């Protein structure tokens, strides 16, 4: 009887740890030609509640947004942020950090 309980406890503990590590959003953004202009994306995301870090790869058109525990960014929200920064969102992938 102890084993199932042990397994369930371990599973719950694991899922809690997974959520506690946060979420990473990988965004493909078009229009990122220069760093001076790309600053707008960094600024806009860093002002968003729950966002902890923003990394920008100009060559790949990739913006990686790291968010904290329990933070959920919707596609509409991300599209608006990218649009207000002056660029176009091509795709968005969400990855839960282990």
């Amino acid at each position, binding site marked *: 009887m102890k084993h199932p309980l042990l397994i369930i406890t371990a599973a719950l503990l694991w899922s809690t740890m997974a959520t506690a590590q946060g979420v990473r959003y990988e965004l493909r953004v*078009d*229009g*990122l*030609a*220069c*760093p*001076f*202009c*790309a*600053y*707008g*994306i960094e*600024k*806009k995301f860093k002002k968003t509640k729950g966002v902890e870090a923003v*990394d*920008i*790869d*100009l*060559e790949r*058109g990739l913006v990686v947004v790291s968010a904290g525990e329990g933070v959920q960014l919707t596609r509409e929200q991300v599209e608006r942020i990218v*649009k*207000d*920064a*002056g*660029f*176009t969102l*091509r795709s968005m992938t969400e990855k839960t950090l282990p």
Partner: protein
Amino acid sequence: MNYLRPAGQGTMMNALGIKKAGAAGVVVLIYSAAVQAHDPVFGLGPHTLFKNATEVHLGFDPSRAGRNQQTRSTLEFAYGLTANWTARVELPYESREKGPDGTGDVGIATKYRFWRRDALGVQESSTAFLRVKPDTASAGRGTGSTDSILGLAYGYESRKWYRWAAARYRFNGETGEGLERGDKLLLDLVGGIRFKQTAYLEPDWVWMLELNGEITGRSKLKGVRVEDSGGREWFVSPGLMWTLRNFAIKTGVQLPLASDLNGNQEATDYRARLEFEWHR
């Protein structure tokens, strides 16, 4: 009838006792200081600010035309109303070899990006531009009239190559003394290159070469054409844009390529520009 004595003959006064601005004065005063990083140094570009961005800009523009040497310093504030619409206020200060230093005419400008195409590492866009310059300068400064500029700009930015094209038309008002300076058409063609594509948080260098043309109409004084006014000047202008994250330095020099000025006027010897920008 020629109301103005030719340049080089002492103090230039017209029949009404009004000092002639001189070719240099007119040329410097038409400076549209509303340039932004990732736009050309002298020409108009299509760049706008991101939404709710604020930008502070400090520029220095020394120039010489014959015996007329002057430096114009401009402090500007810009705001991104939307990602496609920017508003700007310009506060110039003029310093001349001859004559008192003082504040120039305040400028109010707006730029609206009406077309944009984004691709991987590429942004192409077009904007419309409007600038109004009322007569607000201290005595002996400014143009003495309310002038406005309308413009259209196109730009292509990629990780390596840049190209811009722009046209502006300046409508000059009439001063209280009845002087109406000729309207001016400004044309710009620019190419730029980023030799090394650096990462986002590294310094970025873009080298540019501009071809700038200015076609000026004749001035009129109380309805009578001024002979020593108007003409064409063409410049070739190398420039550099250096940026680091949200800070930019731009610099360049306009070197005369060809000029065809009416009557007896002093052509431009050079114009230079040094600008600092910071946005947040």
